[in-house]
């Protein structure tokens, strides 16, 4: 039975085995000795309980270990890279420049062609505003998604034992 116990312990994550493996075997041996004194039936039920406990525990620990690694990976995946911040600053500056250009042109009385000049600036401004709006919406969605994922992870890991 001890050999089977050692074998089943291999189902646990290595970190868990390092932390508790030796101790679990020591306790198992003590309880096993007690049960052997209480007859065959007690030993049989004890063996069943231990096998079930190890299988259940190993699955649980594996899942928890997977959740922890997933949580770390998700946090990394949802961290905004530096280039995104730079891109957003560039978009913002472009929008501000377009606004300023439009303001100057309107005060000077449109030096460019009345047809194109009248269309180009509002069109560019609309495109940039749209891009900016989409960027803000996307940014908001990413933050919301990040919060949801973190909350779910915290719930799955933070369930009381």
């Amino acid at each position, binding site marked *: 039975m001890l050999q089977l116990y050692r074998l089943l312990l291999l189902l646990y994550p290595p970190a868990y085995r390092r932390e*508790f493996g030796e101790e*679990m075997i*020591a306790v*198992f041996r003590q309880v096993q000795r007690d049960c052997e004194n209480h007859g065959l039936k007690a030993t049989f039920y004890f063996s069943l309980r231990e096998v079930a406990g190890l299988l259940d*525990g190993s699955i649980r620990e594996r899942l928890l270990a997977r959740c922890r690694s997933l949580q770390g990976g998700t946090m990394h995946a949802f961290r905004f890279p530096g280039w995104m911040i730079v891109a957003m600053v560039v978009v913002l500056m472009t929008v501000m420049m377009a606004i300023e250009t439009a303001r100057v042109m309107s005060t000077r009385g449109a030096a460019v062609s009345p047809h194109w000049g009248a269309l180009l600036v509002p069109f560019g401004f609309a495109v940039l505003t749209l891009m900016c709006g989409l960027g803000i919406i996307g940014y908001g969605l990413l933050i919301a998604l990040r919060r949801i994922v973190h909350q779910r992870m915290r719930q799955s890991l933070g369930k009381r034992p």
Partner: protein
Amino acid sequence: MTQSPLTEPVLHVLLSLAEGPRHGYSIIKDVEQMSSGRVRLSTGTLYGALQRLLERGWIEAAEERDPSRGRRAYRLTSVGRRNLKQEFARMKNLTRLADLRMSRGRA
């Protein structure tokens, strides 16, 4: 923050440690005795519960692992004791409510 109820094995482990530090084997025996043989913890269940309680800081290792015997003792921390008290308060409220409702049902 509202806490979800503790599972029975965890509650028994905490109760066992409420008196003082215990080793794994001692916890198993104490829980069995406390519950009149109804709750028998396997080592897998016990150490799963201990690990989660250690992670949460509800319990701590009371002494260094004894390499010759491969075991160590665990004890409740102040956080663990506080949470255990909260759990009892919750259970008392539930029992009181159950008594009230059941007596109303009979009337």
